[in-house]
């Protein structure tokens, strides 16, 4: 009798309890004050000089009722250089050097260069991460939650322009895990980062667009 009881506990109750705890913790990530979330992200990012990652991009197109999946890679180096490549069939390359944006469509042989206003440049944005965050950015609602070793920031612009919600999940050492962009037209893009490596010593030659 005792043996059956023990076996039942071992076989069913303990795994059930374990699963319940897992589900509970997964579903109930702790919501934290948005400033604390921003500060956690900032601190995590402070120790990072560069990173590389492979990405999977899933674009859900509401109008066509279909999902387009692409893969590619990204590279970032402080203070102001970002490179993103999306592989075929929708191949594109993008290089953002502070506020100079260069895009290349290799198959079509199209290269475009755009100069953004300085306040939209990478250097400006990342300089905000150089000092502790004391107030929330204007024009957005911000929510944050913490789950295990990740922090998720939900940025909800207050206006009705383009992006409805931007959600970024970072590991506590600053490495990106997932970026979700929801648009007003009900389109949704999820970029998942894989094999993220930080502080690999990226050089200028790693940011050549062709």
């Amino acid at each position: 009798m005792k043996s059956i009881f023990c076996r039942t506990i071992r076989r069913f109750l303990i795994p059930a309890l374990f699963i319940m705890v897992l589900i509970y913790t997964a579903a109930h990530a702790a919501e934290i004050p948005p400033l604390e979330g921003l500060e956690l992200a900032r601190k995590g990012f402070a120790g990072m000089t560069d990173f590389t990652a492979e990405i999977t991009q899933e674009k859900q197109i509401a109008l066509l009722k279909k999902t387009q999946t692409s893969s590619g890679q990204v590279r970032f180096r402080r203070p102001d250089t970002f490179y993103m490549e999306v592989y075929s069939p929708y191949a594109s390359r993008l290089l953002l050097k502070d506020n100079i944006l260069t895009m290349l469509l290799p198959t079509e042989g199209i290269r475009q260069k755009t100069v953004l206003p300085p306040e939209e440049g990478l250097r400006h944005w990342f300089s905000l991460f150089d000092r502790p965050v004391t107030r929330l950015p204007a024009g957005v609602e911000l929510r944050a939650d913490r789950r295990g070793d990740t922090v998720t920031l939900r940025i909800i612009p207050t206006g009705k322009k383009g992006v409805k919600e931007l959600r970024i999940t970072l590991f506590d050492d600053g490495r990106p895990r997932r970026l979700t962009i929801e648009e007003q037209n009900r389109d949704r893009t999820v970029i998942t980062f894989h094999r993220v490596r930080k502080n690999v010593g990226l050089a200028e030659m790693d940011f050549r667009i062709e």
Partner: protein
Amino acid sequence: MNIRVQGTTYDEVLLSAVCQMETMISKSNKYQFAPCAMILCVIFLLTMGCASIPKEQVPFRSGAMLETVAAMVTISIKSPQVNTGGHGYMVYKRPDSFHMVMLTPFGTTALETYSSDDRLTIVIPSKGVAYAGAFADMPDDSPLRGWRMIRLMAVDEPLFDPMKKGTSEKISKESGGITSFYDAQGLLERKKFSSGEEVFFRDYQSVEGVPFPGVIEFTDRNGSRVKITFDEPEINKPLEDTALTPNVEGITILPLANFKGI
């Protein structure tokens, strides 16, 4: 273990393999063959992803019309002043309604255009601004100047007519003459307008019998060239009118003549 697979189509190959597996399992200890069965299943699942047997194309239907199109697109716009383009998606409804969305590399919407008849609306969601007006209002230095040729894609005739193979046909309209050129099969391959524009239809595929060009290219006498490459087209599926009407709620509308770029 030597498995001999027979059959000419993928279904026959699969059926043959399953039958042989069943025979082996019934003759022997099923637990002993379970790993073999699993390995076979995995092999078949993997080969399904790279099946070498091509999908049979439905022959072109003579007289089939393009009523609606929904497809992923890659667009390039080249002119002496501009060299631009990108990836996105498009819907079209006969006779001449278009909605095209260009995406950023991050997958978000960079720009949307809606056009019908001679009207064009360009929406830039990130700025909360739309530009509306007649195609003719578009400034000459606009990067989308060549986009006015999209109207020429509206073909109000079948793209395939075996009776017309290898011929050219001139149609007179109020706007001037249009000459259509058909290839040896009877597929429309080019249209030439007396105003100097030309439209080329290439890489035809049969979408459930409806001939659809995988590439459409427009040129004009000013040296502008617009190329649209279609991917995964869905042809003649129901399309709601809302898909072709701009939602300008909360958007500032400016004259099209003010549009200089994104």
